[in-house]
């Protein structure tokens, strides 16, 4: 007789739900699904498996130029977002209208924007907002998502059903649209509304991954054995399930960090993300876009910085995923 087989059954595989901008946030999901499938082949024991998986991955990563380059790039970005003065001596808000849209000159290698501000200084200072939003939003979404998703996967039942439907609802709302509606009423010039919004729409994606990998980990023989031996829920979750479920979440979170930075820029571009006087690549790109015919340099630098930052995080996540995924070698 036919085996009951339904790939859409909860826990088996969910349809990839786009997050609305036809875009970046889906990458993580796609990657994680393939990861989830391939992390299953298990070594002998729980501790042993976790250790060899990670040390094996680390061994491979150290020799992967993509990983090393993106890691160095990210470190650099983090450092200059904390101490932008290290490489930029000027003040991003001090502008000279008489230099509006002028090209590069000594001391001002990237030229000036419409307001006459130094593009180089603004590009350097722009890292701060992007990195802050990216890291805070990712940490928030990852904590909330893995907590809710992990619990749903571990306990199952109605809690799982409710969570899955709630996640579906959030997937049903196009991201940019939600951002426009929610953030257009905000007047704060800090990064927090944007962070909050990204966490709000980002957690279901992480939750889905966490849930899936917890279910997978839970079905492993040694976890079943631990349960048979009378291990309590708390101990099981912490000692046996969590260490094995955490890899996909980390990978997805890394890739998501890149896409969140891109999302922040997109929202700022539309005028509902960060607001002046916060220095943001998205705002600068938005200002430069309308002037592209007169002064393309204004667009080039912040856009380049933004793209490289996003690329660095996505490549890092990609490299980590490859390392954790023995099947793809």
């Amino acid at each position, binding site marked *: *007789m*036919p*085996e009951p*087989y339904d790939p859409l059954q909860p826990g088996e595989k969910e349809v990839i739900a786009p997050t609305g901008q036809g875009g970046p946030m889906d990458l993580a999901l796609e990657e994680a699904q393939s990861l989830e499938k391939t992390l299953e082949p298990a070594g002998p024991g729980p501790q042993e498996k976790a250790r060899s998986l990670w040390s094996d991955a680390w061994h491979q990563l150290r020799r992967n130029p993509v990983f090393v380059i993106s890691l160095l790039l990210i470190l650099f970005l983090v450092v200059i977002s904390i101490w932008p003065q290290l490489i930029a001596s000027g003040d991003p808000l001090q502008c000279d209208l008489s230099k509006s849209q002028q090209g590069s000159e000594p001391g001002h290698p990237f030229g000036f924007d419409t307001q006459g501000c130094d593009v180089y200084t603004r590009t350097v200072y722009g890292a701060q907002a992007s990195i802050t939003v990216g890291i805070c939003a990712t940490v928030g979404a990852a904590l909330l998502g893995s907590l809710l998703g992990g619990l749903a996967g571990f306990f199952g039942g109605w809690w799982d059903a409710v969570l899955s439907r709630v996640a579906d609802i959030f997937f049903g709302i196009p991201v940019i649209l939600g951002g426009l509606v929610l953030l257009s009423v905000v007047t704060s010039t800090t990064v927090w509304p944007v962070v909050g919004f990204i966490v709000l729409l980002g957690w279901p994606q992480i939750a889905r991954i966490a849930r899936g990998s917890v279910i997978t980990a839970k079905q492993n023989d040694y976890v079943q054995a631990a349960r048979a031996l009378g291990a309590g829920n708390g101990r099981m979750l912490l000692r046996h399930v969590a260490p094995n479920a955490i890899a996909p979440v980390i990978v997805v979170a890394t890739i998501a960090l890149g896409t969140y930075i891109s999302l922040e820029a997109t929202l700022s571009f539309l005028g509902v993300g960060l607001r002046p006087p916060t220095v943001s690549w998205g705002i600068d790109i938005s200002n430069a876009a309308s002037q592209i015919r007169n002064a393309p340099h204004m667009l080039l630098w912040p856009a380049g910085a933004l793209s490289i930052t996003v690329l660095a995080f996505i490549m890092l996540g990609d490299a980590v995923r490859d390392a954790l995924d023995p099947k793809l*070698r």
Partner: protein
Amino acid sequence: MLLEVRDLHVEFKTRDGVAKAVNGVNYSVDAGQTLAVLGESGSGKSVTAQAVMGILDMPPGRIAGGEILFKGADLLKMKEEERRKIRGADMAMIFQDALSSLNPVLSVGAQLGEMFEVHRGMSRKDARGKAVELMDRVKIPAAKERVGDYPHQFSGGMRQRIMIAMALALEPSLIIADEPTTALDVTVQAQVMDLLAELQRELNMGLILITHDLGVVADVADKIAVMYAGRIVEAAPVHDIYRSPAHPYTRGLLDSIPRLDQKGQELYAIKGLPPNLLAIPSGCAFNPRCPMARAVCRTDVPPLYEVTESPAPRTSACHFWKECLHA
């Protein structure tokens, strides 16, 4: 001779070096004959078969030398298009796991009929009729009703019958069966094996049966080739081997079959592990595990000795085959 493999060498490029999977294999099969190839996993028995079929993954695989003569012509010298026309039509293969070897999204009728469409240029409708005939032939009940069903709707034994039907579709002169019953329940194993043997007799095909199950071999094989670390260590008519093996590895294999008259005694097992193909031991590859090993075994690769006692041709790759034979 229907098929003759001469001094075949196959290598695989891996991250850690070149793995020598097949190192100078010789064997032959005639029409109507059954050759059983025995060996542990990694002994090169499946790789040799894949090289014969021409379905090795290249790269990482590479045929480093030798000849494969099929009806007198060297397959390795043929153009891919010529080989393709032989594959499936005049030489077919049965795989171990029928569930994964059949395409999950095509009906079994379509997969069987495809053979006739591609090799015989039949219309889809005629090919479908042929598919029903084939399913009848391998004794699948209600073939006509089930021809549109998908592989997952059949039981394991029925799926393996479909694999057999697919291999037999164009009545090839050679069939290679790679562990055809390993994935099946013990009760079904015998049925499938009997069916295969019966069809072989009927069509007078050559059959290469790859297995690690000595029980299956005794019933159906005419001759046996035992492989170890990519070489044939002993080749002989089936009864000679069971009576008196001429290689310590064969002896070890035979001794490790559980027997009822030894109930209560400890089971024999060959000590050690199969060799690492990246670093095959020098001399005789079996020497680290061999109870009879001496100094010469660690230095000199044993040639294939003619074991002359039997009227049928018989060879052993052991320096001390005589000792082994009379032990």
